[in-house]
């Protein structure tokens, strides 16, 4: 299971999670989701520190964060 779980259907591609990620491990995908947005995804799980900031800042309640 990934440290950061995205509910891709709810993502509107605002990139707030990308901006505030302290480790810059989130990126916007090139593909588009059903809403027509580029969804965010965890590009570098190894460097993710499970701080939870992306989840707290996501306006669309599309992110949940886990710590191993």
């Amino acid at each position, binding site marked *: *299971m990934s440290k950061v779980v995205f509910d891709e259907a709810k993502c509107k*591609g*605002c990139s707030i999670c990308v901006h505030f990620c302290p480790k810059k491990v989130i990126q916007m995908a090139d593909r588009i989701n059903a809403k027509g947005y580029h969804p965010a995804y965890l590009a570098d799980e190894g460097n993710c520190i499970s701080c939870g900031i992306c989840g707290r800042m996501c306006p669309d309640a599309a992110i949940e*964060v886990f710590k*191993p």
Partner: protein
Amino acid sequence: MKQVYAVPKSLQPQATHYCPGCTHGIAHKLVAETIDELGVRDRAIGVAPVGCAVFAYDYFDCDFQQAAHGRAPAVATGIRRVVPDAVVFTYQGDGDLASIGAAEIIHAAMRGERISVIFINNAVYGMTGGQMAPTTLVGQKTTTSPAGRELGHAGSPIRIAEMLATIPGAAYVARVSLSSPANVARAKKAIRKAFDTQLSGAGFSLVECLSTCPTNWGMAPIEAMEWLEKNMIPYYPLGEFRTPEGGASNG
């Protein structure tokens, strides 16, 4: 794995109608987290405004009433008086609360009505397409102040938190910002404190949330958050303007 951040249970699972990057969604989550923490979902009754949050009732998993423009504090008063043990909150924007509903919010505070008010200040009318709000900054361009809000013509933006803090019945009044992780964490604490104030019976509580409107400001979401911090916070200082203990920590 241990869950570090979970979507609050008091939120409905569906996607919101808000524009990408709009901070309404963050405010919704903070309210829902507070309801979860306090375990009051089954006695929470929300009041939705007219404006972008008109459909707030679709997103919270609790009873709701939808109020006429600006009248949410009066509707909440009616609910509060009928259901004494309910946890009653209104969720209102700046046009709704600070313009057409100015009388209702002042008098709800004046009565010390035991309700919690989440006041979203994004300095613009969102739903109707970006017109000038009572909170629009001087010089800020909107669709009805195309050359920028002019002080001599439209007057100065209204500082709701400071104004309500002069009212004895307003037990807790704070202004927070939804523009950064640190500010969101403070916003969460303030919203929790507002609900705690209601539950303790101390009186009226309001949290003014400085928010972004990327669509009507014509900015990308991050750019809007930066604009908020640079332009709104200097005019709308963050802090607690009144607490049940009598303290204030603004500026």
